[in-house]
C-alpha cells in the first residue's frame, strides 16, 4: 500500500451529491482516509460507529475523516444514515476500485482492504496502515497516535 512520504496519487472518488472528490480536495487540510470493505457489513459498522464516537476529538486535532468503499453512493448514503454517522462517504464504484488500486489497498476480491491513510495539507502521505485481514478493526487509538506523531 502507499507509504508515508509518498505524494497522493491521482484519483477520483464520488461524493454523495454526485460530484467528484479528487486529490485537490485534500489540499490544505489533514485528512484521514478510512478504506473499508463493505457498507452494512458487521466490522465496517463497528468501525464507523467507533470513529464517529470520537469524531469531535479527531476534529479537535484538525483532522477530517472520509469513509471510502467500492459501494455505490446510494448504498453509502443509506449506510451512513442508518448508523447516524456523519463521516463523509466517498465511492470508488466506477471505475470500480480504481482509487483503491492507486492507493495500493484494493483487495484481490474487488473491495478495499481495511486500511487507513493520513494525508497532510501538502497532499503527502503522513502515515498508512493496513489491517492484517479485512476482519480486523483498527482502533481509533492508532489514528490518534499517528496524528500526534
Amino acid at each position, binding site marked *: 500500500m502507499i507509504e508515508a512520504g509518498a505524494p497522493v496519487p491521482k484519483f477520483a472518488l464520488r461524493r454523495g451529491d454526485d460530484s467528484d472528490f479528487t486529490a485537490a480536495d485534500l489540499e490544505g487540510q489533514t485528512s484521514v482516509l478510512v478504506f473499508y470493505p463493505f457498507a452494512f457489513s458487521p466490522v465496517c459498522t463497528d468501525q464507523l*460507529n467507533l470513529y464517529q464516537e470520537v469524531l469531535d476529538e479527531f476534529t479537535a486535532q484538525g483532522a477530517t475523516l472520509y469513509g471510502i468503499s467500492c459501494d455505490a453512493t446510494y448504498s453509502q448514503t443509506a449506510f451512513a444514515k442508518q448508523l447516524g454517522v456523519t463521516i463523509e462517504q466517498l465511492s470508488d464504484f466506477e471505475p470500480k476500485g480504481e482509487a483503491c488500486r492507486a492507493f495500493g489497498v484494493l483487495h484481490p476480491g474487488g473491495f478495499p482492504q481495511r486500511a487507513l491513510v493520513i494525508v497532510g495539507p501538502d497532499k503527502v502521505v503522513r502515515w498508512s496502515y493496513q489491517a492484517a485481514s479485512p476482519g480486523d478493526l483498527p482502533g481509533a487509538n492508532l489514528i490518534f497516535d499517528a496524528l500526534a506523531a
Partner: protein
Amino acid sequence: MTDLGSAPIPPPGEDDHVRGPRDGRTLIVYADFECPFCAVLHEHLLALDARIVFRHFPVRSSHPRAWPAACAAEAAARQDRFWEMHDALFADAARLEDPHLWEHARTLGLDLDRFDTDRRSDAVRERVKRDFRAGVRGGIVTTPAVFELCDGAPVAIARAELIGDAGR
C-alpha cells in the same frame, strides 16, 4: 486487540466499580448497557465466582441510549447504588428511555431529583468518558471487551472463553 493498544488498559483503581471476592479471578469488563452481547455476558458473569470491574464503553451510533444509561448508572453510584442500577439496566435492556431510568431509580429508592441532576451533569459525563477514553487508548474497538488481571496487568481474554457460542 491489545496488540494494537497505544497504552495499557488501566488496572483497577479506587474510582472503579468493583464487586466480588478479592481472592479469585479479577475481570475488567468494558461494556454498554444497550449492547445485547454485553447483556449476555452479564448473565454469565453473575454465575462466576470472580471479582468484576465494570467500565463504560458506550457508542451512541450503535446504541443511542447507551450514554444516558451509563450516566444513569453513574448517577446511581453517587447514591452508592451503582451495582443495583447496573443489574437493573441489563435486566431490562430493551427499555432505556428516560421514564424507564426514572422507574429504576424509584425502585432503588434513590433521591430522584438528585439522580436526575447528577445523570445530566458534566461530572458524570466526564466520568463515563474517562472509562471510554482509556478503552480507546487500550485499543478496544467494540463491546464487550474483557480483560483478566494477571500479575497486576490486564490481559485481553476472548469473549468466547466466558460466553461460548453466545459470543459473536
